């Protein structure tokens, strides 16, 4: 599904990523772990075209997407969430949800202004309601994000990324800031999305959360891959223990 080949990124003197190589399986849920500043978000930014790597390539479904613009990467079927909430404060959640769909079937500006494309709107409205419902935010749908709890907003972002029916879903710390019940709820939703045949790659710090979900784990440290494999394999890896699990829960 996703081939990361020898990716290198530096910001000024900082080597955010060097020699990053791994292949993500075609199915299931994969996790990208590593301590703060390891380069996880940067790798997401490389995949989605926000950061151009100085070397290496990214292949998605066999196609080289290195250097593609973010818009193009999305249209090829990669959708993502952001580590920090990226929800527009002046619009309701329902209106915000539309962002997840708008780029997919770009309706003509004139046609929508003249209100002639009713079929498109019917389909869009249904899809919006479906997604709001799927991530349990229907009851908050007509509020602006300022008056909605954080956990709901996290779920909302998952729903919006899922709106376009992507092939690959990138989630940047989806469980951060959630309580235990919310995390369990999130895990259920992630499993459900996966069972629809959508591939998931997530950055996550919560080991327990990963252990129950991820089939494949990659660990980054200081911009380099230090281990890949199943959760159990990575967890046993000495370098990982030293770099990451040591100060977490091992």
């Amino acid at each position, binding site marked *: 599904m996703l081939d990361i080949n020898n990716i290198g990124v530096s910001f000024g003197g900082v080597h955010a990523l060097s020699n990053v190589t791994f292949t993500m399986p075609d199915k299931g849920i994969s996790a990208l772990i590593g301590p703060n500043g390891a380069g996880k978000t940067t790798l997401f930014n490389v995949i*989605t*075209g*926000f950061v151009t790597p100085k070397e290496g390539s990214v292949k998605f479904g066999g196609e080289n997407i290195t250097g593609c*613009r*973010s*818009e193009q990467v*999305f*249209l090829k079927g990669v*959708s*993502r969430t*952001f580590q920090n909430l*990226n929800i*527009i*404060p*002046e*619009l309701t959640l329902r*209106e915000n949800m*539309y*962002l*997840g769909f*708008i*780029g*997919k079937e*770009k*309706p003509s*500006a004139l046609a*929508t*202004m*003249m*209100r002639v494309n*009713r079929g498109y*709107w019917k389909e869009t*409205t249904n899809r919006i309601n479906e997604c709001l419902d799927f991530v349990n935010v229907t009851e908050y749908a007509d509020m602006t994000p300022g008056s909605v709890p954080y956990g709901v907003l996290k779920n909302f972002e998952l729903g919006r990324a899922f709106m*376009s029916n992507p092939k690959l879903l990138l989630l940047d710390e989806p469980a951060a800031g959630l309580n235990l019940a919310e995390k369990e709820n999130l895990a259920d939703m992630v499993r459900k999305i996966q069972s629809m045949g959508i591939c998931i790659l997530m950055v996550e710090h919560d080991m327990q959360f990963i252990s129950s979900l991820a089939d494949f784990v990659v660990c980054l440290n200081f911009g380099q891959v230090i281990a890949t494999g199943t959760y159990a394999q990575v967890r046993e890896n000495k370098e990982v223990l030293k770099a990451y699990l040591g100060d977490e829960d091992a």
Partner: protein
Amino acid sequence: MKRLNFSFIILMACVLGYIGTQVSNEYYIGVATLLLIHAVNATALNILLGYTGIISIGQAAFFGLGAYVAAVLSTNYGINPLLTMPVAAAAAFVVAYVVGSPILKLHGNYLAMATLGMGMILYIFMNEMDFITGGPSGFVGIGDIIIGKFDLADEKSFFVFMSIVFMVFLFICELFDKSFLHNKLKFIKNSESACRSYGITPARTKVMVFASMAALTAFNGAIFTFYTHFISPVSFSFKYSVELLAMATVGGLGYITGGVIGAVLLGLVPEIFSAFEEYEMIIYGGLLAVVIMFLPGGIAGTLKRLVKRNA
């Protein structure tokens, strides 16, 4: 797709109908015509700044560009005034597209400076190309709009014409405000990175919006030309761009009603305080400061919040 809301449109229709039928003082009717012209310009800027997040301090230049294109074509080449309007709009569209493509990569203060510079340059052209524009002393001898057997030479008939144009414009604005396009622009205004990761190309949309609003403003400039029959660069200076910015902000950025409310309110300032012309800018500045500090969303936004709270 949201339901259309005609209440403001109906209110405006009533106000304009009242002025058209009950007011006979030519001076007042003239003021009303000018307010409508300002309202269109302020609304165009509102769509740029309030909806799309593009700050432009060069709108007066597009207004002037349209005015001069229409004046030259109709006076020197004898082209029907009504036909000069779309030509003026097309000319401004092209200019704005060419200028906008590079400068819309800038944001915030830098974009403000760039549009200010663009306005200044066009202003200099109006002054210096006196073989076409008549230079600082202005362009004289502009004719009337003639529609069938109606010659729009007097205040009243021009007011009726402008009212019809304005109502059509308001209706289109309402269609825009309740369409997907409105959401798309607000997405772009708030987060270009979110837009790009969901398949929208903000750069392309922003240039189109900038050019379209320039075209609209120029179309309006052409109408202005045939209203005043005389134009000179002073009407299209930096000062007018700033006034439009104040109108849109005081009225309410991001609300269609905002541009209209702001234009009427600030457009009346020089009429009411005509004895203290020197203080005009102080009044503008004061109002702007009060609104920015105490009324987020401008007058339109504040009214909307009040209505919602009491509903």
